[in-house]
C-alpha cells in the first residue's frame, strides 16, 4: 500500500481545494466504512436466519456521505429512502439505532419495530419517517422546505430516491412545486441503473435524469457517486444555493448497487455477471480509500485503528439489539392517534 503523495498540501489536493482537512476526510471515511460494516453484518445476520429481511445501501455510501457532509447535520432535514443507511448515520443515528431496527425490537427509534428494516426515522435528528411506497417522500421534503422558508428557520431539506422512483408522479409534482417557490431543498437521485430488475433503458429514454431539472427551472447536475469529494462538491453548491434563496438543486449520483435488490432478490436472474463486476470497480469505499492513501491521509496504522473501532461498534450494536426486548404485543393498538 504505497502512499503516493505523502506531502500533499491543502492547496494542491482536491480536498484541500474544497476546504476539507485530513480530519474531515478521515471522519467521512469512517462513516462510509461504518455504514458498510453495519450493512455487511446485516446480510450475515439475515443469511444466518437471525433476522428476516435486509435491504441495504452498499455502493451508495460515498454519495450519501459526500452530499450530507455539506449540510448542517444538526439543523437541516433529511427525508431518506431505504438505501439511506449511510446518510442516516451521518445525520446522527447510531449503529445501535440501526441494529434495533433490523431486529425489530422495542427500542428501534425508527418505528419501534413496526416497520420493515431500513424504514428510517429519527425526530431528534430531523430524519422524517420513511414509508415503503416509492416516491411519496418527495412532496414531504418540499413541504418541509416550504415550512422552513415560511418560518424563516434557515433549514434546508435533503431528500433521496432511486432512479426508479423518478418515474412516479409524486416525483414530478414535487420538483415542479419546489421550482415555483424556489424552496431550500436538495433533490438526490441515487441512480444505480436498476429498479429491482428493471434496467434504466426501460425506465427512461434519457441517460441522465438530471436533465429534467431544466424543465422545473433549476439546475440538475450529474456526479460520480463513487467519488466522495465530487459528491461533497455538488452538495456544497446545492447547499449554497438553498441558503442563498436561489432554490432547489437536483443532484443525480451515479452509483452502483453492489448487492441484490434485497435479501428477497436473486439478481443473477436478470443482471449479467460482467455488469456486476464492473460495478465493483466503482465501490466508493475502495475508491475513497485509494484517494486517502494517495494523499497520505490514511496509512496502515490509521486504517487498522479505524476498522478495529468499527468492528467493535458493530459487534456491540449487534449484541445490544439481539438482547433488546421485543415490542409488547399489547402495544399493537397504540399511537394510531395522539395519546393524551
Amino acid at each position, binding site marked *: 500500500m504505497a502512499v503516493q503523495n505523502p506531502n500533499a498540501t491543502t492547496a494542491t489536493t482536491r480536498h484541500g481545494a474544497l476546504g476539507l482537512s485530513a480530519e474531515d476526510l478521515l471522519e467521512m471515511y469512517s462513516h462510509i466504512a461504518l455504514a458498510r460494516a453495519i450493512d455487511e453484518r446485516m446480510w450475515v445476520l439475515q443469511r444466518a436466519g437471525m433476522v428476516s429481511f435486509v435491504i441495504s445501501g452498499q455502493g451508495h455510501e460515498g454519495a450519501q456521505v459526500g452530499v450530507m457532509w455539506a449540510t448542517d447535520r444538526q439543523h437541516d*432535514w433529511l*427525508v431518506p429512502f431505504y438505501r439511506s443507511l449511510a446518510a442516516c448515520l451521518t445525520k446522527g443515528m447510531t449503529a445501535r439505532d440501526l441494529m434495533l431496527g433490523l431486529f425489530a425490537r422495542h427500542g*428501534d*427509534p*425508527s*418505528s*419501534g419495530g*413496526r*416497520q420493515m428494516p431500513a*424504514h428510517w*426515522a*429519527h*425526530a431528534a435528528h430531523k430524519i*422524517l*419517517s420513511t*414509508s*415503503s*411506497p416509492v416516491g*411519496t417522500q*418527495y*412532496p*414531504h*421534503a*418540499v*413541504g*418541509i*422546505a*416550504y*415550512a*422552513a422558508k*415560511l*418560518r424563516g*428557520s434557515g*433549514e434546508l431539506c435533503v431528500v433521496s430516491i432511486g432512479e426508479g422512483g423518478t418515474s412516479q*408522479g*409524486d416525483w414530478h*409534482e*414535487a420538483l*415542479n*412545486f419546489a421550482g*415555483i417557490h424556489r424552496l431550500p431543498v436538495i433533490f438526490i437521485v441515487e441512480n444505480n441503473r436498476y429498479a429491482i430488475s428493471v434496467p434504466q433503458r426501460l425506465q427512461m429514454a434519457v441517460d441522465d435524469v438530471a436533465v429534467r431539472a431544466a424543465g422545473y427551472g433549476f439546475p440538475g447536475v450529474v456526479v460520480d457517486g463513487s467519488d466522495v469529494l465530487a459528491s461533497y462538491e455538488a452538495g456544497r453548491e446545492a447547499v449554497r444555493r438553498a441558503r442563498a434563496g436561489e432554490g432547489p438543486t437536483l443532484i443525480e449520483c451515479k452509483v452502483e448497487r453492489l448487492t441484490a435488490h434485497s435479501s428477497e432478490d436473486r439478481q443473477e436472474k436478470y443482471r449479467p455477471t460482467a455488469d456486476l463486476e464492473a460495478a465493483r470497480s466503482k465501490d466508493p469505499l475502495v475508491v475513497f480509500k485509494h484517494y486517502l492513501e494517495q494523499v497520505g491521509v490514511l496509512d496502515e496504522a490509521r486504517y487498522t485503528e479505524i476498522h478495529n473501532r468499527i468492528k467493535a461498534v458493530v459487534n456491540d450494536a449487534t449484541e445490544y439489539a439481539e438482547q433488546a426486548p421485543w415490542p409488547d404485543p399489547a402495544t399493537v393498538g*397504540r*399511537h*394510531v*392517534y*395522539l*395519546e393524551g
Partner: protein
Amino acid sequence: MAEMRLIDAVRQAMYEEMQRDERVLVLGEDVGLKGGVFGATDGFYAEFGEARVLDTPLAESLIVGVAVGMAANGLVPIAEIQFSDFIHPAFNQIVSEAARMRYRSNGAFGCPITIRAPYGGGVEVHGGLYHSQSIEAFYAHVPGLKVVTPYTPYDAKGLLKAAIRDPDPVLFLEHKRLYRSARGEVPDDDYLVPIGPAVVRRQGTTLSVFAYGQMLHETLQAGSQVAEEGIDAEVVDLRTLRPLDTETILASVRKTSKAMIVYEDNRFMGFGAEVAALIAEEAFDALDGPIVRVAGPEVPAVPYSDPLAAAFMPTAAKIADAMRRLAAY
C-alpha cells in the same frame, strides 16, 4: 351571533383560526385571488398574503403530500380539494402517508392536517359523474384518519375549528347542497364542536334513522311527513363518521328497536354498512325488525342529466316509504 350559510361558517372558522395562529395556512387550487370555487377562502389572499393562502399547481397528491411535510415542520395546513371527486390522486398520500405517520413512527411524528372536500350530488348540483361523488366510505375505513361531515352552519364552524386544532389528520367533508341551503345561527366567538359525538336531531320512539349531510335534510323531511301518520322517527346526525359515536347509535336503537341508515353513496360497502353491522352485532337483542338501508343505486356516480340524477338520489319520499315499511314490520 349571526344567521349565515354553511359555506360562510366554513369560511369564518378558517379565517379565525388563521388570525389566531400564524402556523395555520390554506393551500389548494384557486384558493388565492379567486377565493376558492365555492368562496370558502374569499378575501383570505388580501388578508393573509400569498404565502399563507397558497394557490397550488393542479396536483392533488402534491397538495396532500406537501401538507404532510409542512405539518412535520411546524405548520398547520388546511388543504382544500376542489371537489371530493378529485381527491383520488391523493389517495396514496392520505392512506399510506398522512394516516400512518404517527403509527409508523411509533408516535414520534404526527400529522396535524385538515383536508376539506366539497362532496355530494343532487339534481340541483348538476355535477354529473365527477362533481357529485360521496367519498366517505373509502376514508372512514382508514385507521389514523378522522372523518367529519357537518349538517348545520353551527357545527360546520365548531367542527372545522376542532379539525384544524386536532393533532391528527382530519378529512372534512362539506356537502355542496348544504353550502347555501343550510342556514343557521353561528356565534361570532371562538367555540369548538368536538370530533366524535353524534347528535339526535329529532327525538322519536318508533324507529331510529341515522344519516349525515344532505341526506339528513331529506330524512328530517321524511320524518315530518310520516309523523302525521303516527310514525315517530328518531333522527340521528352522525356528524363524525370516524371515530363513530357507537354509544349514541346503540342507545337510540335500544330505545326504538328499529334501525335505518340513509346515505347518498351507492349502497354496497357504503358507510351505512358499518352502522348496520355495528347494530347487528351490538344491539341484536334489542332489534325488532330488519336493519334497513336507503342509499344510492349501484352505479359509478350521479349522472348529469336531470331525469337520471333524480332517479339516482334518495329523496324524502323514498325515505318516508322505507320508514312506513319498517314501522309496519
